[in-house]
């Protein structure tokens, strides 16, 4: 019995020290693996990547006869500004003519007048302004939007406004195939920071134009509190939909 105990607690001999070394290496390896994966493995996404898809609307008009030669479609002209009051600095200028008073037709019967008023009200009812927001977009299609999308749209609009590719140096055919992905961070004031090219398009002029767009934009509206500190910007030449 005493010999058996002595055998169990005897100091590690030559053969058993190799086993100890192996055990230690195994522990180290597992620790290294733990540390490595803690550093390298991506944290699970908190939300799915959000992607904006831009819609191109077909212009209102008559379709072109297929036997006619094609025309170069010009972008629509910007809308004319609303009419403004014509003010004069001449103190002696004649007063503007007053609007002519409406002539009531005395011959109309009360019933007819009532019917006309109802018809006018009905007509006005169909021309009710679309539901939206005072800060909404002219091209908006929804009466409400989520906060996240609204912010992404603001970033999209600001950067796209400054995105100019050099026509001629990047041909239309090339442009249609080019995609560049850039990672940017946005600080609490809305400053665009640390642009990092994650995927080059392979075309220097195109990549430069994307970087220049971010540089020229410089600042976007301050992000909402729930914002995740950055975006992946995917610049695509002429992609309409994925």
């Amino acid at each position: 019995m005493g010999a058996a105990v002595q055998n169990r607690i005897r100091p590690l001999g030559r053969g058993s020290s190799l086993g100890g070394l192996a055990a230690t290496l195994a522990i180290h390896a597992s620790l290294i693996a733990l540390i490595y994966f803690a550093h390298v493995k991506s944290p699970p996404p908190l939300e799915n990547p959000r992607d904006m898809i831009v819609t191109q609307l077909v212009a209102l008009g008559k379709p072109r006869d297929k036997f006619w030669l094609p025309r170069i479609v010009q972008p629509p002209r910007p809308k004319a500004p609303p009419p403004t009051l014509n003010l004069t600095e001449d103190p002696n200028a004649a007063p503007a003519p007053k609007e002519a008073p409406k002539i009531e037709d005395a011959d109309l019967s009360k019933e007819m007048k009532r019917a006309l008023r109802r018809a006018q009200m009905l007509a006005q009812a169909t021309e009710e302004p679309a539901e939206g927001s005072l800060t909404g977009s002219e091209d908006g299609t929804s009466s409400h939007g989520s906060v996240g999308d609204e912010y992404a749209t603001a970033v999209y609009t600001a950067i796209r406004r400054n995105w100019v590719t050099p026509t001629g140096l990047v041909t239309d055919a090339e442009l249609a195939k080019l995609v560049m992905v850039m990672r940017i961070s946005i600080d609490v004031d809305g400053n665009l920071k640390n642009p990092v090219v994650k995927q080059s398009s392979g075309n220097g002029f195109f990549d430069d134009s994307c970087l220049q767009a971010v540089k020229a934009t410089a600042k976007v509206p301050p992000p909402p509190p729930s914002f995740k500190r950055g975006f992946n910007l995917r610049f695509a030449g002429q992609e309409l939909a994925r």
Partner: protein
Amino acid sequence: MKTYPCICGLLFVALASSRPAQAADQPEETEVLPQITITDPNRDLFRLALPSAVGDAALAAAATDVERRDLDIVGLFRVLNPESFPESLVKEGLGFSSDLWSQVGAQGVAKLRATRDAGGVAIEGRLYQIGQGEAPVLSKTYRGGEVRPLVHMWVNDVIAQFTGTRGVFGSRIAFAMTGRSPEVATIGMDGQEMKVVTRMKSQCLLPALSPSGGQIAFNSYLRGGADLWVVSAGGGRARHISTRPGLNTGPAWLSGSTLVATLSYQGNADLYKLSASDGKVLARLTNSPGIDTSASPSPGGGQIAFVSDRQGTPQIYLMSSSGGGARRLTYQGNYNQTPRFCQRKDMPLIAFTGRDERLVFDIFTYDLRTGKIDRVTQGPGSNLDPSWSPDCRLIVYTSSRGGLYIMNLQTHKEFRIYKGGAKNPSWGPPPDDFK
């Protein structure tokens, strides 16, 4: 035994310290971020600054003029107004300050120094690109007898730097003059160095430069009817090639020694293959009841595009250069004419004049791969008689506005290179340094 924990600790320290420093406001590299796809960028020309050349004053002024005109004509750049450059940039010489040029809106800067020494004229060029550092992306020196060809070579190299294909400045365009002296003339593609090459003193039309640029076939009414003539591109005495009864018109070069032209001596106006040296008929290529004319061989000469009204209205057709197998290409528009093949094998395009529903003539292209027709010009006025540059980047044409115009097919930027009366331009081969 005691060393194991030490190793473990060291590994911990090493691994922990290998983690990149992360600013508090930066997303981690591995963090999944929302993605915004931005499409359909705005399109504009590349903004190129061309400050005045330095060096010998007279040479520098000439070099600056040639460089600005060339880089404007090619239609790839928006040449910035030099008056907007501050004094510090004007006095910069051949050096370059990226920040300062960026402030005036330049995306690139091309600089020249022109000097004269015992060996002739030397042109030193530097091309800088914003965002590519302070060193030039292109630096070259040219030596020769005259400023213009040297600057053309520099511009051709600048174009190659941006597009991968050299420019073709130095090539020439033949055309028929209109007005009091309706002779055949040639002009540099920059609209300079015009030279009248015939002295027919009668109406000359439809000149066609040979593949080498050494000869011009053309049409003249010197003997009353429409006859075919050939003259050296350098000028001299023209020799008649075909004076057969009826039409002898619309010559095109199938090779350096063979022409395709419309003849009607057998009754109907059809296409024939002729010897360019003596006008001998080598083959009859078409035999249709309509009028077949305005032939244009493909690069390599395997096919010929032409105009025929065999189905009622003038339309573009394509056939083998040995004749036969003609097929109609255009079904849009009811008056299509003057087809001209692009001479690059990788760009199977035919430019032609089409009349649209407003009865206005404009330039169009037909893509042989897709059958798609694209419009090149859209007014003002009527634009007609296209001819491709050797690199197929540009098209020269005439207009009811008068003169010769060049347009870049990609950017649609137009430049009037010649203001006088002109018809039927034919763009010759590229300069010798074209690769």
